[in-house]
């Protein structure tokens, strides 16, 4: 197996973000997509806490403690940015104004179901944030995650076992091993990460990968 680095994975996702898009990047790995946007494209990133136009992280010492993104990182405003409150922020998300959201996931099912907010561990408090609003409102949901869990168990499933975030909402999944589209028939291979075979990736995937 040859696994893409987090950075290479972010760069792969960034290739699919069209010029002029409005994009919400989820907490964790998706945050890094913006750093890899191909030259010549202008994209406005929305942060659910109230910023449209998330710019680069400021140099150390120049942070504004009240200017953060949804991952609680210090950021700067991009050219053309706007601040707003939570009701307007979620109107953008729920109302279909954002073009693309890139989210992390615990599990994705072959029908596009997404689980990324709660596990089956009752002692671990669930935390949903804006994920459920994004998946119902944003027309294109891209998922970005490791292909398998740390224990090797699959994350691309026939059916999610964890509580769902949204039903049939995922458009495409980017993992360190492959890119897969969600189609009415199930996962369809878009491409394999360099150095991997379909058989090897299928072996790490509960659902069937169509080609």
């Amino acid at each position, binding site marked *: 197996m040859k696994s893409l680095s987090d950075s290479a994975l972010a760069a792969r996702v960034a290739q699919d973000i069209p010029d002029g898009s409005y994009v919400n990047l989820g907490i964790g790995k998706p945050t890094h997509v913006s750093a890899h946007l191909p030259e010549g494209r202008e994209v406005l990133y929305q*942060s*659910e*806490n*109230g*910023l449209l136009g998330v710019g680069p992280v400021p140099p150390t010492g120049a942070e*504004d*403690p*009240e*200017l*953060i*993104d949804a991952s*609680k990182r210090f950021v700067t*405003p991009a050219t053309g940015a706007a*601040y*707003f*409150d*939570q*009701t307007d*922020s*979620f109107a953008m*998300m*729920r109302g279909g104004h954002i073009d693309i959201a890139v989210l992390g996931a615990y599990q994705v099912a072959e029908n596009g179901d997404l689980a990324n907010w*709660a596990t089956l561990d009752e*002692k671990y*408090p*669930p*935390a*949903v*944030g*804006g*994920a*459920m*609003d994004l998946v*119902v*409102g944003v027309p294109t949901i891209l998922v970005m995650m490791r292909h398998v869990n740390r224990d090797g168990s699959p994350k691309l499933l026939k059916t999610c076992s964890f*509580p*769902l*975030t*949204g*039903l049939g909402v995922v458009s495409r999944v980017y993992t360190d091993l492959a890119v897969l589209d969600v189609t009415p028939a199930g996962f369809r291979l878009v491409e394999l990460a360099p150095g991997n075979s379909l058989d090897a990736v299928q072996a790490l995937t509960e659902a069937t990968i169509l080609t």
Partner: protein
Amino acid sequence: MDKTVADLARAVAPITDGASIMIGGFGSSGIPFGLIDALCAQGTTGLTVISNNAGAGETGIATLLKAGRVAKVICSYPRTPGSIWFERRYEAGEVALEVVPQGTLAERIRAAGAGLGGFLTPTAYGTRLAEGKETRVIDGRGYVLEAPLHADFALVRAARGDRYGNLSYHATARNFNPVMAMGAAHTIAEVRHLASEPLDPETVITPGIFVQSVVEYGVRP
């Protein structure tokens, strides 16, 4: 009309045991740290806290959780980086938790402030967070009926305020503060700077009608 209050202690004095309190902020931004500390010092307990997060480290809402003052938390994301005290109280069964999707949380608070009886949202339809709730399908799309979320008090943080209660915010510190000011019966605003002249009407984000008292607390997070 003068809504200014001399100090934090006097601002939180009306809050009594068992009150429901909306607390502004997202992550470390826009949190009314001064008012929370004053509320903790006052000893008020049995609180229902409505907020996006449930505090981090030993500051903000974590102060109230550590001191055992919180009976229930209604929030979207209790686990924030550096959060300890919510987890301890939750694992010990000492605090109840209602998880609400972030947009639904904002919208429920707005419905309370705007006098609406509820709304239909596609958010959470078909998930565990819609269990037990009324749903309906309109034009092939599923919706959940959500109720307004009222509170006795709101503690908010603003960059600037005036004696009329008008507020303006700085950068992403705006977040839940304006909608909570609208949604609570009694809103207490901590402002970094209390302006001696009224704010320019074009720059007001929270009109003073939504604010019952204003106190200056210049410390920046």
